[in-house]
């Protein structure tokens, strides 16, 4: 089995071999192989014109990627950390997202964003970028939580004719495969495959409570569900996998079955995508609800660096368990 990081490398490598129009832009990705070594050895193989070490200029190189995409190329942009995508904001939200709607052609770019907390990375290397993009039409937003998804979704993103916000989780890059729960290490096919967007995955079936999540918190979700099982409560855990498109049907099906729902993400609760998800449920399946909709995310603070603060900030298994118990008791 390969790691999440290796899965990303493989996807890039195979796509570059498959299609000459695919090329990579990013800081330190060529000579240095990238901050996380995802493109190590790529420049030697594909040359410095397909693995492009760019000047420190996120808006500029995102714009360059868009321009090349307008001409039919398939650029994949690596941000050194997801946090730095704020430098390119208008390129994505104003230019790339609307170009096709304005009937000016597709913009097939992939923005690879190494996202979320690792360990004491602090306020500028730990952010979850989905909320910056979630309200803008025309952007796909994907959040692979397994190596299988990382590989299949990155390939899918590269072949997609739309701009794709590709969140990758630093926490998973080098996560030891054999320490992952079984359900988070699906076999990776030898053959070429892609993961279709908009299809949630049920990580664990359950009847009492729906626990809907994505990204890093799949780990806490599974652990907490385990704990609740010992309480005699059966929790269904669903990994959304992509936020746009959203598998609304999966959420609705699950809540129809359980009548109780907890949305969980690493990002802050206030203003997080959990709000939209909760609102959808409140609008569309209100009558199936047996309890208030709950959301769990980080509290109202910037991601702090020092370990005691960071631990208190991040959603933990204990916090998930406590929310689930509240719901179970309702």
């Amino acid at each position: 089995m390969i790691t999440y990081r290796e899965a990303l490398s493989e996807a890039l490598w195979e796509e570059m071999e498959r299609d000459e129009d695919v090329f990579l832009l990013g800081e330190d990705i060529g000579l240095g192989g990238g901050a996380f070594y995802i493109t190590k050895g790529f420049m030697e193989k594909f040359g410095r014109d397909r693995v492009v070490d760019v000047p420190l200029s996120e808006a500029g190189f995102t714009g360059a990627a868009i321009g090349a995409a307008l001409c039919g190329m398939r650029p994949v942009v690596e941000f050194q950390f997801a946090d730095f995508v704020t430098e390119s904001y208008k390129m994505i939200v104003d230019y790339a997202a609307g170009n096709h709607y304005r009937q000016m052609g597709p913009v097939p770019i992939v923005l690879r964003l190494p996202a979320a907390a690792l360990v004491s990375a602090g306020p500028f290397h730990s952010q979850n970028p989905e909320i910056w993009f979630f309200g803008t039409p025309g952007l796909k937003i994907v959040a692979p939580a397994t190596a299988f998804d990382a590989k299949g979704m990155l390939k899918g993103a590269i072949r997609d004719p739309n701009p794709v916000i590709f969140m990758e989780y630093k926490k998973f890059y080098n996560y030891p495969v054999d320490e992952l729960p079984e359900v988070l290490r699906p076999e990776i096919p030898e053959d070429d495959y892609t993961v279709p967007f908009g299809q949630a995955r049920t990580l664990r079936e359950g009847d009492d409570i729906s626990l809907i999540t994505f990204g890093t918190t799949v780990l806490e979700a599974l652990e907490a569900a385990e704990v609740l099982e010992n309480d005699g409560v059966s929790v269904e855990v669903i990994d959304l996998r992509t936020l746009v498109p959203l598998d609304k049907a999966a959420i609705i099906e699950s809540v129809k079955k359980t009548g109780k729902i907890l949305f969980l993400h690493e990002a802050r609760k206030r203003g997080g995508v959990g709000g939209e998800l909760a609102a959808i449920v409140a609008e569309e399946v209100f009558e199936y609800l047996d309890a208030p909709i709950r959301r769990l995310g980080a509290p109202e603070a910037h991601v702090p660096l020092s370990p005691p603060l960071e631990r208190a900030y991040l959603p933990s298994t204990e916090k998930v368990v406590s929310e689930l118990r509240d719901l179970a008791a309702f």
Partner: protein
Amino acid sequence: MDAKHPLATREELANLDFYTDLADRYLAVDGLEARWVSFTRKEILPDQETAGRMHYLVSLARAVEETLDSAFRAGHIPGTAFFGRGNEGASVASAMCLEDHEWLVPMHRNCGAHLAKGHPPRSIMSHFFGRADGPSGGRDGNFHMGYRPKRITQLISHIGTMVPIATGVAWAAKARGKGEATINYIGDGGTSSGDFHEAVNFAAVRKLPLVIIIDNNQYAYKTLLSDQYACDALVLKAPGYGLPGFLIDGTNAPLVHHVCSQALERARAGGGPTLIESITLRAAGHSVYDKFADYVDMEHFEKWTNERDPIKRLDEALIEFGVMTAEEVAASHARARKDAEDARDEALKSPMPDPAYLTEGVFAE
């Protein structure tokens, strides 16, 4: 020192007066050397066929925008409209140098460049009128237009954005190795944007086949050049990127053509980007709504619009040097006017967009 191309002195640059200094010479900057290159109006004239096309296109640019202006006053244009009056010569003469398969990355005062690249007046009219058959189907309007069949990108409002986009377009051309070049424009105001800097630097580092033309029309909306930059001329930014630069009179269309075609040849041959500062005057308000007399020095304005009108200057030069007769010039103007008005009449018959399609096309399939 080459006597024909003397080095510009510090004093000359510090006291640069676009009006007189660029009358019969242009500045070529290379590294820390700035040379004055003299020319005669005759020697820079293009061949007869090119001159004829140029003349028709500058006339068309003026006619299309004047027609749009009156259409706006007649209530046919939703929103606002920006025009490139005073910039028709530079726009046309530069974009004419592009081959059909090369890309143009225009800004909001480059109607002439659209026309020169082949964007039909009919399509432009529909676009400004918000019609269903315009290039954006009514989803956008005003100068926010592109035209993919002729490889013209659409700009977004955010000034600066298009320079990085242009580097990507040039990147694609280079990657595919067909020796194609790209032209992109940016205003004097736009040079202050971070995007301009990031993109010009990237183009220079990667020697992209790109010609960047700074349309210095002496205003950025209501902001004076002296509040926009503190260097003696914007072309002095070229050495800081390791690029060659030219400072030219943009109201002299043949000169623009002369300098641009060389820059494009260089780009196609792998020589990398060129930065051209083209001086014009924005010969109208910022937009149709702008009361520009409030902040514009009207004496300066009158002098430029009278004596440096790019179309009048082209008329005169072509007649004076026998490239076209006065009758041919008049006929070219008349044809342009008719073509613009026909396009308007046709476009006014086009349907408005159907709201049923409001949410379609957000994603490409």
